[in-house]
């Protein structure tokens, strides 16, 4: 620290300016992205690793394209699907971690006393936090996966050319258009489907002083165990399982039961996906849990 800046004390006030145009939600969201960069860095890093694997394994590409041209497209499509799946899983894990930290962290480091000194309501703050896993992360994963796929296509074209093959069949038989369709439909759908899980994690984050992960996991597990012991039924684990995996079953398999994986455009069935009452039950539950998180944030003091 150089000088103590004695003239800090003599800074002359400047003229008043007109009131700012404020955008509390937008800036609350920006502030989340400043603090929690792992929510997009994690999927980007994983996608980069998958891309590296693709580059290293590309000597087998002409053979896989030939197989695809003969009708067996699985092997040529696999890297695209893996890039999407891996980026999604990385985003889901970093998103879950984000949800568990976002409301507890600001109390732990006492910065809540700064956030609350500004005219941003608790509802705006909580909704901005909820928008991170529900809006920002799906968009980030789409952008990351598209960039990865395009890099794969470009490199693939290059490999085909230098190995004296025609890149045309790769673009015809090995183009991930259907995977993009699954992604564009699936990621927003999963964001809605997982809303109650996101809301539950944020509620725990707003409530627990520490050990948020344990508070998020142990009560539902104990509830399931108690239910089994007392009533010998399994409604609780089924309910939780549906919230966690039901959306994925709709997106990645036909019939929504996880048995037959989706293979083409014809397997994407929006009517079936949107008419599942579990989606709407989950959204109602999410609204209640978010409201609880807003109220807790309002009441909780820094720990």
């Amino acid at each position: 620290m150089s000088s103590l800046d004695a003239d800090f004390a003599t800074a002359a006030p400047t003229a008043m300016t007109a009131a700012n145009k404020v955008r509390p939600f937008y800036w609350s969201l920006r502030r989340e992205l400043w603090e929690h960069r792992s929510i997009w860095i994690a999927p980007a890093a994983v996608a980069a690793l998958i891309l590296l694997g693709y580059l290293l394994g590309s000597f087998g590409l002409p053979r896989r394209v030939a197989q695809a041209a003969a009708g067996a497209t699985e092997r040529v499509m696999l890297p695209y699907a893996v890039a999407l799946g891996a980026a999604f899983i990385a985003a889901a894990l970093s998103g879950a971690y984000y949800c568990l930290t976002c409301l507890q962290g600001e109390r732990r480091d006492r910065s809540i006393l700064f956030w609350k000194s500004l005219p941003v309501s608790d509802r705006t703050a909580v909704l901005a936090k909820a928008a991170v896993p529900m809006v920002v992360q799906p968009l980030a994963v789409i952008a990351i996966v598209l960039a990865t796929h395009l890099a794969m296509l470009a490199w693939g074209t290059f490999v085909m050319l230098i190995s004296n093959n025609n890149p045309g069949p790769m673009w015809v038989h090995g183009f991930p258009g259907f995977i993009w369709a699954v992604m564009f439909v699936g990621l927003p759908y999963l964001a809605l489907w997982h809303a109650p899980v996101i809301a539950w994690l944020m509620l725990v984050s707003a409530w627990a002083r520490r050990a948020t992960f344990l508070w998020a996991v142990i009560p539902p597990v104990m509830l399931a165990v108690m239910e089994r012991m007392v009533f010998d039924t399994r409604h609780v684990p089924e309910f939780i399982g549906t919230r966690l995996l039901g959306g994925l079953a709709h997106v990645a398999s036909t019939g929504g039961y996880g048995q037959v994986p989706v293979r083409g455009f014809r397997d994407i069935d929006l009517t079936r996906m949107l008419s599942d009452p579990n989606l709407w039950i989950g959204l109602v539950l999410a609204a209640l849990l978010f409201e609880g998180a807003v109220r807790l944030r309002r009441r909780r003091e820094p720990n």
Partner: protein
Amino acid sequence: MSCIEARGVFKSYGKTTALNGFQLSVGEGRILGLIGPNGAGKSTALMAMLGLIPFDGSLKVLGLDPWKERGALMEQVCFIADVAVLPRWMKVSQALDYMGGVHPRFDRAKAEAFLARTSIKRESKVRELSKGMVAQLHLSLVMAVDARLLVLDEPTLGLDILYRKAFYDSLLNDYFDGGRTIVVSTHQVDEIEHILTDVAFIDRGQVVLDSSMEGLETRFAELLVGPDKADAARALNPIHERQVFGRQLMIFDGADRKALAKLGEVRTPGLADLFVAKIAPRFDMKGRAA
């Protein structure tokens, strides 16, 4: 109109009563020092005024109920609760962007002007700044807001004396304009004494003394008296007495200054001495030390 109007405010945490019929009225344009021992309820009172905690009783700040109308209140009220509550990951430039983006009365140019007088760099993160610099940054942000009320809860705790002095000088010279109200709580009573217009002593969740500084001068007197006249002085019922260099220092509440002047040197007691006189009896230091 009064800026803060608290009547019979109660707040308890489990079995601990933090505010026990808290009563306070602060007019606009005043600088009030809220002074009390640890655990007296200062922070709780300030948190209630800022809408950070629910409470029982009647409390209006700028005519608003802080608990129910915090969002609206925060457009006109600024506060620094505790030192170093700025998020450690935040860059100085981000803090300026964010304040400008959410606060309708934040004047970024003004904040930049305050920061230009410090050695704080725009690209620094809060975690890279010293504690004193974080306090300077926070004060720069807060002073750039055209607020009607500024609440400071131990804003200089743990800072060295140079930073503390610069902090309060800056507050008085650059911010206070006679129209704004400032409420400040601190332990470093003697350092803020000269900037206050009003003072409130708080003990065990209640305001035990609430007066303007001029009011204190007329009400309280400090007498330095030799041992020969000590008994005569004691007959006038001092509220506090201690020995200073072989003489007795006594503090009187509402005594006739002329009568005191006959016994020895009469002055207006400092806030720290007055604080000890009003609060110390229940701590019973003498009894325990003996």
